[in-house]
Structures are given as C-alpha cells and as structure tokens.
C-alpha cells in the first residue's frame, strides 16, 4: 500500500517540470522535493533530489571541495581520511574510502553521496540498489579539477560558489604562469610511495600539477600509478625528488633517512639532497591543489619569486573569496622547518 502511494507520488513528481539550471540556484529555493537529472563525470545519469540538503562525501578531495564551496553545513558525513579542513574531522564518519559502512550512510539519510575514482564501483552499485543517489567525479588534470568543482557546485545548488572557486584557482595559476614565464622545467621524480617506489603516470592530475609548477615528471607512463625501478630513476637522474608531506603520517621515514635506504644512493638528487617537500594537497584533486602547485614552483624556481617581494606580500594578504587556504608559508620558513622535522608522507594515492 505504502509503496503504491510512493509510486503515485513519484509519478506525480515526474510529470512536473524538471527545474532548469538557473531555477535551482539556491539550495533553499523550493520547499517540495524535486529531482534534477544530471550526468556525472563517469557518464552515469543521476537523479539528484532538489534541493540537496544532506551530502555525504566518500573522499578527502570531495570533502575539501564541499568546504571550498562553503557548503560544509550540508555535509552530514565523510570518511576517516577526511582531515582537511580540520573541521571535517568532526563530521560523522561513515568508514574509509574503500569499505564504508552502507548502513551508516543510509542512517544519515543523505540526499546525495559524492564519490570519485578512488572509491569502489561496488559501493556505488550498492548505494544505487538502496535508492541512494551517488554523483561521481573523475578529474585527470588541474583544469578538470576546476571544471569538476564548478559542475559539482552546480549540482549541489551553489553555482556561484563554483564559479568563484574556479576563478580563484584560475587567477592564482595565471599569476604563477606569469611569474614562471619561460623558465625551463625542472625534471622531477614525484614519489607517491617509496617502498615499493611508485610514481605518477602522465594522465594523472598530479603530473599536470607538476607541469603547472614548472616541472616535468621523468616518468612517462600510461599507467596512473606506475611502479618504478630505482635503476630507471638512476638512468633518468631527476633534478629533484618531490614528496607530499602530511602531518598525520608519522610512520614515513624522514628525507634524510631515505638517503640511507639501500640503493637510493645511485640517484644523484638523493646524494645531493635535492628534495622538494610539498603539502599533501597535491594528492587530492580539490581546489587546494593550487597552493601545493605554488609551493612547488617556489621551491623549484626560487629565482622567479625573488624580484618583487612587495607585490607577493600583497597577494598573500588579499582575502580569498572562497575558503581556499592561504598559500603556504614562505620558502625560507618551510625549508628550515623541514630540515629539522622533514616527515615525508610518501602520501598513498589511495587516501587522497
């Protein structure tokens, strides 16, 4: 009986006009539940309830994006890996990215669950079986992170926030390209994990982030997370090794400890201590990646940042329209800090 009523109600709803993009601008505009059909980045058609009041994020990058869009009050659950911004740690946890608890998700009554390429397709299918809509993102470049954030903002009913976040990213990157000008890119090895040595393939957003920071990955693989042999690294001899550091990861060895690992001394960048350690924001396809790109550019091309210190200071103090974190501390501070406690994450790509 109840099902029949529900079906009748649903049919009535379906016959209503599907709200267009412009009409669904504010998440609080309509009182009655409506649906909007969108196609997500994996090509699936998703029926998104309107407005989207309760969001669950199943990846740290998606959590960061939701915060960057200023929609954190609608975020009712996230994963145990969602540690940025710190407030995200206080949200109800639904498990990890690989094995979240379906019942915990269902109990939070989400309007929409956000998933990305690190989640398993079983999770999406299971949620679909339970009638919980999921929206998937899959950005492979920094440009795609911008458009993905914009599209997500639109789906979540906050298109202006999306435009402003994307414009902000765009402005920072344009500024950076202007500074870097035509400097020859540094050849780097991005270390995703050091034992076994895993780097990034050319179709990842991290490889793209390296390009924007005036670097080029010595690894040119079709695979996204290729295992690389030390011999190959020694043959290619990168100018720099790039690591992503996270404060939560204390198990990883220090940069100095890495130099003593067997075999690593055949890499000149290791013996000469030519490292760049950047924030683990680089591992997460979210707006904050821009700060990691800027940071890397500063470390790799310090000359490009010395001429106009006042202008740079201006830029740092300019309030950001969206809650993008401020650019990281100046190079001198960061590198001195790293010499004393250079915890490397090796940042598992699985937890981005």
């Amino acid at each position: 009986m109840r099902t029949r009523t529900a079906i009748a109600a649903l049919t009535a709803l379906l016959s209503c006009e599907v709200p267009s993009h412009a009409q669904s601008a504010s998440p609080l505009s309509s009182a009655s539940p409506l649906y909007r059909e969108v196609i997500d980045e994996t090509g699936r058609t998703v029926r998104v309830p309107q407005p989207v009041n309760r969001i669950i994020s199943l990846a740290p990058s998606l959590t960061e994006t939701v915060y960057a869009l200023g929609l954190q009050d609608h975020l009712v659950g996230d994963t145990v890996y969602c540690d940025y911004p710190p407030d995200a740690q206080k949200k109800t946890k639904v498990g990890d990215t690989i094995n979240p608890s379906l019942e915990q998700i269902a109990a939070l009554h989400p309007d929409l669950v956000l998933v990305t390429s690190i989640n398993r397709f079983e999770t999406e299918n299971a949620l679909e079986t339970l009638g919980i809509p999921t929206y998937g993102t899959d950005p492979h470049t920094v440009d795609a992170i911008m458009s993905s954030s914009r599209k997500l903002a639109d789906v979540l009913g906050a298109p202006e926030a999306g435009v402003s976040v994307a414009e902000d990213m765009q402005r920072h990157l344009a500024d950076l390209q202007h500074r870097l000008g035509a400097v020859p890119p540094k050849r780097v090895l991005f270390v995703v994990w050091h034992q076994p040595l895993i780097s990034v393939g050319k179709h990842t957003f991290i490889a793209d982030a390296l390009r924007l920071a005036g670097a080029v990955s010595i690894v040119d693989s079709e695979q996204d997370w290729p295992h690389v042999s030390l011999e190959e690294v020694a043959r290619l001899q990168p100018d720099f090794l790039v690591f992503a550091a996270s404060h939560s990861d204390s198990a990883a060895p220090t940069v100095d400890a890495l130099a003593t690992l067997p075999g690593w001394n055949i890499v000149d960048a290791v013996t000469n201590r030519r490292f760049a350690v950047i924030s683990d924001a680089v591992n997460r396809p979210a707006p904050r990646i821009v700060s990691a790109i800027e940071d890397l550019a500063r470390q790799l091309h310090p000359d490009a940042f010395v001429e106009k210190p006042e202008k740079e200071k201006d830029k740092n103090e300019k309030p950001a329209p969206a809650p993008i974190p401020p650019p990281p501390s100046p190079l001198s501070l960061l590198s001195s800090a790293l010499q004393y406690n250079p915890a490397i994450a090796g940042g598992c790509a699985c937890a981005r």
Partner: protein
Amino acid sequence: MRPLTLRRLLLQCSILLVILFGVVVIAIKFGAVPVSLYALGRDLWNVLVHQRAAISSDYVLIIQNIRLPRILLGIIVGASLSVAGTSFQALLRNPLADPYVLGVSSGAGLGAILALIAEPHLNVSPTLAALLTPVGAFLGAAATITAVYFLGRREGQIDGNTLLLGGVITGSFISAIIMFLMSTLSGNLRGLSFWLMGELSTPLQKSIYWFLGIGFLAAAGAIYTTASDLNLLLAGEKEAMHLGVDVPRVRLVVYVAASFLTGLAVSVSGAIGYVGLIVPHVMRLIFGSDHRTLLPTAAIGGAIAVVFADTLARTVVAPSELAVGAVTAVVGAPLFIYLLRRRLA
C-alpha cells in the same frame, strides 16, 4: 554407527536452527549504526501485525534493506560452502578438503571474472546476462576440481597429501591469473580483494536471492540423495563398489553439485575460505560422521559460522568493514594446520 531416526535428525537440526536464530538476532541488532532492542522489537512487532505506518524509516533503511539481505546472503553462502566442503571431504576421502584449500573457490572466481569480461561481447538479454556470472563460476569450479582431482591421483588412487598440495598450488596459480586480469583490465569489475578474500557487503537484486535459495536447495538435495553412498565411500572406492554403490554416478552427481554450490557462493560473495573445512569438522565431532545427519547439520552450521563471522567483520573496525574472508581465515588457517599435524602424527 547408531541407527538414524527421523526424530533424532529433527532434534539435532532444530537445536542448530535455534542457535542460528540467536546468531541472526545478534546480527540484526549489532552494526555500525546502533539499534536498540526495544526499537527493534517494536518494529518487528509492527511488521508482524502489518502496521506498516508505524514502522520507523530507519528500520526499513537499515534492518530491512541492508542487514537482513546480508544475513540471508550469509546463510546461503555459508550453507553452500559447508555442504560443498563436506561433499569434497567424503568424495576425496580427505578431511582437509575444502573449496578454498582445493583452489575451487579461486577457480570459480576466475570463471566469474571471465564471464563478466565476456558479457558485454555476448549480446544476450539482461536476464540471461545476470545468470552468466554464476554459470561462469560453476564452470570454473568444475574445471578446477577436475584438474585438482587428476593432480592428486597417484597410480590410480587418490593420494591425500598430493591432492592438498595440488589444490593449494592450483589455487595460488589461479589467484595469480586473477591478479593479472585485475591489473590489466579495469572498468566495471569488482575489486581484487573481493575475489581473493570474499565479502557480503553488496546488496543484490531481489530475484538473485530466489535464484540462490532454489539453486542451493536443488544442489544440496541432489547431494543428500547420495548420503548413504557417501557413508560407504568412506571405506574406499573399491569397497563401496563391492557393496553395490554406483561409484561413477555418485562421483558425478556430487562433484557437479558441490562445484555448483561453490560457484553459487563465489559468484555473489567471492572466495570465503575455510568455512567448508571448519564446520563439517565441528559437526562431525558433535553429531558423528553419518552423512545423513552431517550434511544438514553442516549446512545449518555453515550458515551460523558465516553470519557470525560477518557480524564480526562489520563491527570490529566500524564504521569501516573487514572482509568476512579475513575473519574466517584467521580462525580457519590455524585449525587447518592443527588438523594437518594431527593427521600426519
């Protein structure tokens, strides 16, 4: 062997069913989301008296849509694996035989994966496509047990240790192929851990549960018709033949049905290990080795074991989850070593 009476069989089964019911209640009660016994009782009462409007939406969401289907799946998978293990042990006259140890679960997994890969190219109707995976898993299981059977034969007789070694090696070889396929292919395939460790977390379409239930009853029923013959087979194939057992027919029926049960379980839950090893052993210790009681008690015991293991799998690291296969392996592998040492001593 004490003469079997229907009354004794029913008594044994009902004791186990009461235990299963208790485990099911525990499994319904505990999970990542706390549910109070009062709320549970109230909702169950409302379901019984058809007071649909009074049922809380959390009950429908969590108990009815997530926990109950998962428990049902655990019951079917556990019973299937346990009956398959009992059958393999009788047929191979080796108490350490188990679908997982013999590599049959891996074979079923490989068959299921190949079916999933082939599905888009076969151009079949959706109903048929849904059956492709279990059929592929069955064929994979049947091919593996045949291969392991011949690997384990020495001079026309089954050699217990050679058989086990052959099974373990076959299983690890097939797992390597699965790993290779998983790293070269991507797309809409289940994750690697599913096929190697097994899990019950994904809810299935309603029709699949019917297919599983009917498939289990048919295959387990077929095996049960040979229960007396399996008892005689314990004495040896030649001896059984002299006692009038149609050994080739029994062998065919039991191999096919046990492979089918393994394929059925693996296609929906991946490779959950050691259930088919532990449960028949425990049941044999309690109720004796008469297959007419062993088969049904092992079926219920397998259901109890998997539902209980899965309850642990989804609560110990909540809100994240373990693979249920990891839980059964933690208990099963040491027991396997113990039984192996005792047999060799």
